């Protein structure tokens, strides 16, 4: 399908038109921070904002959601199950890293046993990606083979001189653009050229990023598990970890959740919430926790991203290099420091 375009100043009209038939999620500012939220009149897209605090995964896999409710009705239990999402929606403004994050989640939630809530949202959601405007020094999506200039999703787009150039990549994307055909316009050769130039300029920046030299050597499906697991450096890497859940909750690929119940006094609500392997009560069992100290929890998180996940899913890593944990960790410990310390080496020599 041919490329379409719209002026940045007209984006609100695009959102308004889309919201006639579906909910539109986009990064919205609240008290100084951006997170994905439904579009309302008056809101617009801010291309200068690189990252939302919570990644776009929160739209497909919300931090907490009800599963079932039950209450006593006479002698029996009245149980009502939360119906999976059945309305169309679009997530606008997702960057390449977060789009790649969806793929990481897909492999987990869409393989047996399929997560019906996640699946329903994936089916009803259309991803409208935008190439990031100005990558930060903390960005390293290239390390995981992500092409920031082709952000992917159902529709991908590029911003050049106040104009958003977009192209559909899937049927869903084509349907989306067809729905707004009265608002977007055709692109001439000059426009195609402008879009190509902004991509080229972006690529030049990506190559200059300070983390451009970071590699996954020493990790992944080919790495030897036990020698990596037993590396003595885990202790010093984890030594000052506070055990908070910041890295997990801002991560676009962390997928662990807990299922809990809440007694409202009238009924019980069973809901699921994001959980963090950094917490002391993570996977707590009757016999206690399998990872009693913070070093083990810390190691679990990074082994999962760099070794267990690749082992389970054909070599793909469970990190997309968005850099959120680099910016948000209270003590500035993060996956890059782990990879620098443990990467590249033959783990048996250590």
């Amino acid at each position, binding site marked *: 399908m041919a490329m379409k375009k719209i002026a940045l100043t007209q984006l609100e009209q695009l959102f308004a038109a889309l919201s006639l038939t579906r909910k539109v999620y986009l990064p919205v500012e609240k008290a100084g921070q951006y997170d994905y939220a439904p579009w309302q009149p008056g809101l617009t897209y801010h291309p*200068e904002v690189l990252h939302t605090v919570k990644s776009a995964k929160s739209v497909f896999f919300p*931090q907490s959601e009800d599963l079932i409710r039950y209450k006593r009705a006479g002698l029996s239990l009245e149980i009502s199950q939360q119906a999976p999402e059945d309305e169309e929606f679009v997530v606008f403004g997702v960057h390449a890293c977060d789009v790649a994050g969806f793929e990481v989640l897909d492999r987990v939630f869409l393989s047996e046993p399929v997560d019906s809530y996640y699946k329903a949202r994936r089916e009803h959601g259309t991803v409208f990606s935008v190439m990031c405007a*100005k990558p930060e020094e903390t960005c390293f999506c290239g390390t995981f083979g992500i092409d920031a200039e082709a952000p992917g999703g159902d529709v991908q787009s590029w911003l050049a001189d106040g104009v958003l150039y977009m192209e559909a990549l899937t049927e869903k994307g084509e349907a989306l653009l067809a729905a707004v055909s009265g608002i977007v316009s055709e692109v001439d050769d000059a426009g195609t050229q402008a879009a190509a130039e902004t991509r080229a300029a972006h690529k030049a920046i990506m190559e200059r990023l300070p983390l451009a030299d970071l590699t996954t050597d020493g990790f992944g499906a080919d790495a030897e598990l036990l020698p990596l697991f037993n590396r003595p450096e885990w202790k010093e890497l984890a*030594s000052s970890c506070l055990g908070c859940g*910041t890295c997990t909750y801002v991560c676009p690929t962390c997928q662990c959740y807990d299922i809990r119940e809440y007694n409202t006094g009238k009924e019980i609500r069973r809901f699921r919430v994001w959980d963090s392997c950094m917490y002391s009560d993570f996977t707590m069992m009757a016999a206690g926790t399998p990872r009693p100290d913070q070093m083990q929890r810390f190691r679990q998180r990074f082994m999962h991203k760099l070794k267990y996940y690749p082992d389970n899913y054909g070599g793909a890593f469970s990190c997309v290099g968005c850099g959120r944990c680099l910016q948000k960790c*209270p003590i500035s410990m993060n996956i890059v420091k782990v990879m620098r310390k443990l990467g590249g080496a033959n783990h048996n020599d250590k």
Partner: protein
Amino acid sequence: MQRVSERVIARARELMREGTVNKVAGWKAGEFFYDCAPYVFESEESLKDLVYDRFCAANLSKYMIKNSVAAGAEGGKVLVLLKPCDTYSFNQLLTEHRIARENVYVLGVGCEGMCDIDRIREKGFKGITGVDENADGKTLTVHTLYGDGEVAIDDVLVNKCEFCKGKAHMIFDELISDNEDEGPRGDRFAGVRELEAMSPADRFAFWQSELSKCIRCNACRNACPACSCRKCVFDNDASGIASKANTDSFEEKMFHIIRAFHVAGRCTDCGECTRVCPQGIPLHLFNRKYIKDINEFYGEYAAGAEAGQRGPLINYTVDDIEPAAVSDKGGN
């Protein structure tokens, strides 16, 4: 700052070399110029990564709970670098018998205020690759992937430094500092007063908006030097409030009121909670409200000003203010 920094690092090496201490708790250089992490160095060789600069805001006091005991068990001593504000937290932990004082060598370090990389980013700098402190001592030149710029240090200070308590160390074994104590910087209760002056509806809207950002990552709790319980009530399933969810707006309010209440009278206003919050919630406004109320109701009290003080919430006088008087005072 640089002059102090060189002396601090040299002295830490020296103390390690001569065997006064066998470990040094400081800040370890990171991948970038601003991401140094708290770290306990165990050899003189490893000290090559020790840094002390404008980005060493993390308070190392809490690490002494574990490390002072460990140092004692190994028959050694751990040196800890404490900025003036950090010494309050250290004292408070001593008061609560959480640190084995005899195993710690406190090297007080002078401080001219720490910079917050997030606040530099908020000024519009993207892809920051370095900063240089200019000769005037008041501005930073910021280098980025997209060009250079300048920013006033005062505009990018960490919140706790914006309202610095003073440059005096409350406890130390040795001091390296060029600071003259000029007393507190700014009115740290100004933000609290501003809120108090609002209508209840506006106050509620303010907190609703701030707290609904909370992702319950517990960074504020875990970074807090006063939060040193072995098992937190919010992690205790039997407490009935151990919810991991931000399922409802009230959850966050309850969490944050209680978090601050549990450290009321013990909070030294070290500002770690606000500094670490990934959502930029001004959590210090809770803590400072409690501090302000305590000062007004029960007389001035500075937790951690000296070790061994009896905190206001484990104390009383027979003619204390009545809760009724509190709810009747002024406003709506």
